[in-house]
């Protein structure tokens, strides 16, 4: 097997006595969609936050593309190609859809300490932003104010923003949260399309989406990885059924 793009080793994070990330180790290989599932409060978002650099782990190591990035800040990781989306949509609501993406293109092309030239007239920025919007299917909405988009469109916009940072690994925190069935379908199709170019790690509650998308699934319960494998493995894993599918009554 090839080198993992992301390798997490013995990651730990506690809030007081509560271990939210308890000795987590996992590998994400290039070209994969790696899903993390687990019940509420399992520490999924906390894990993503540590991988994206928003939160510092207590111990352990995060290695990205061979480089240890455990203590690198979020901006530094994004520049190396590790982008994330948020569970609760985070866009720049007061800017146009196009500008939301152009500002991400701007972040990696040239200095932003330019005080005179009008940014909105930089053709290179706009063209590249437009390409990202077209890719996620938001091209026709480019001139709208971001806050006027529907919830599903905002989710698409977030992915367009992430794409504009030219990521090699995309961390998606519940990309389908709060979307209706039609919106979810659009987003799932989008992720499948992107799969050939971008490695993805995603947290998701929608099981049918996970089984449809993921090449590898890790199950997180109380901060610990209790199982890992393909969709088929996970479906039949006793520990997963116990912890995740609500059959704990029969155990112990």
């Amino acid at each position: 097997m090839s080198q993992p793009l992301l390798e997490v080793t013995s990651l730990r994070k506690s809030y007081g006595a509560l271990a939210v990330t308890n000795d987590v180790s996992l590998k994400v290989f290039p070209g994969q969609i790696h899903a993390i599932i687990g019940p509420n409060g399992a520490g999924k978002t906390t894990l993503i936050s540590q991988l994206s650099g928003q939160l510092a782990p207590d111990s352990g190591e995060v290695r990205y593309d061979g480089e240890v990035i455990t203590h690198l800040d979020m901006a530094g990781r994004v520049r190396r190609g590790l982008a994330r989306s948020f569970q609760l949509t985070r866009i720049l609501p007061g800017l146009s859809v196009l500008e939301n993406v152009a500002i991400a293109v701007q972040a990696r092309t040239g200095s932003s300490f330019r005080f005179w030239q009008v940014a909105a007239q930089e053709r290179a920025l706009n063209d590249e932003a437009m390409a990202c919007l077209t890719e996620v299917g938001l091209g026709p909405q480019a001139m709208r104010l971001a806050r006027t988009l529907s919830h599903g469109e905002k989710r698409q916009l977030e992915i367009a923003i992430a794409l504009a940072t030219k990521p090699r690994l995309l961390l998606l925190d519940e990309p389908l949260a709060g979307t209706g069935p039609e919106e979810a379908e659009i987003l799932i199709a989008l992720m499948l399309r992107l799969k050939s170019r971008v490695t993805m790690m995603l947290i998701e509650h929608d099981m049918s989406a996970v089984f449809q998308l993921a090449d590898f699934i890790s199950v997180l319960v109380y901060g610990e990885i209790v199982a890992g494998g393909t969709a088929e493995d996970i479906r039949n894993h006793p520990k997963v059924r116990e912890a995740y599918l609500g059959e704990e009554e029969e155990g112990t």
Partner: protein
Amino acid sequence: MTQTPSQMPAKGDPRIRIALCIFACLAIVPPLLSLVGLDYYTSVVTRMMIYAIAALSLDLILGYGALVSFGHAAFFGIGAYAALFLQTRGITDFFLHLAGASLAATAFALVTGAIALRTRGVYFIMISLAFGQMAFFFFISLSAFGGDDGMSLSRATLFGQELLRSEVTLFYLVLVILVVIFGFLCRLTRSRFGRVLIGTREDSLRMEAIGYRIMPYQMAAYVISAVICAIAGVLIANQLQYVSPTLSSWQRSGEFIIMVVLGGVGNLVGALAGALLTIGLEEALARFSEHWKLWFGMLLLAVVLFSPGGLTRLVERVSGRITGKGDDR
């Protein structure tokens, strides 16, 4: 997909047109006043414009960067005291006063910004207020400059000449500086830098997740804002021919915020109009009633309640209704 836009719309911004109208009106004020024999009011309008410069400086960080500085009058005072200090050392040149004020403001902004910019929201407001008060009490402690009472000074020289003795010359100098600063800020806020600053206002975590380390951008905006406010401070020292600690009292900082909020934040024209209106109303209402602050407070309340975007928003809505264009916000 039918279009690949190479640039954003909103060119020929109506706000720019409003600003140009305001500047044109200001330019004819002195001859008009002297025609009707009310020369005294020239200096009132000069003061209005000086406050407009200060309000513009605040709008850059408050309106575009969501950094509500409640201690901005510190920079106003720093500018004024820099002029006073240089004047007492025998350095009378106006441009040297500007340079000295800019340096002092930059130094103070770098130190206070390094601490205050680590905080957000209401904590930033409180810390900036604390630094403002520090500057205020520092000026009070300067017994060589009159302590509490402050000190008078003569006007600076321009190109070695005592040109600023004339109220009209001072008026036009202030107007030119106001126009230049307004133009500069218009460009700045539409530049790459301005876009990043607006991004931090909209959602700073999102900006970090895009790959920006936002502190240097906020710091740069804070320093630029400080320098512009200090320039206003130099001008007010020249206009009043008097410098005292009250120039940097917290009430003054509050007044700056009121000007920007009254006019509408984050579009520059609002700050410009808000400052002109605030000082104008102060003059007018004070004549009309002892309790003018009450009336002014009511007006402010009405604006905040009925037109949260300030006067500029109100004007946009009204003109939008007239031209039949929709309201997209």
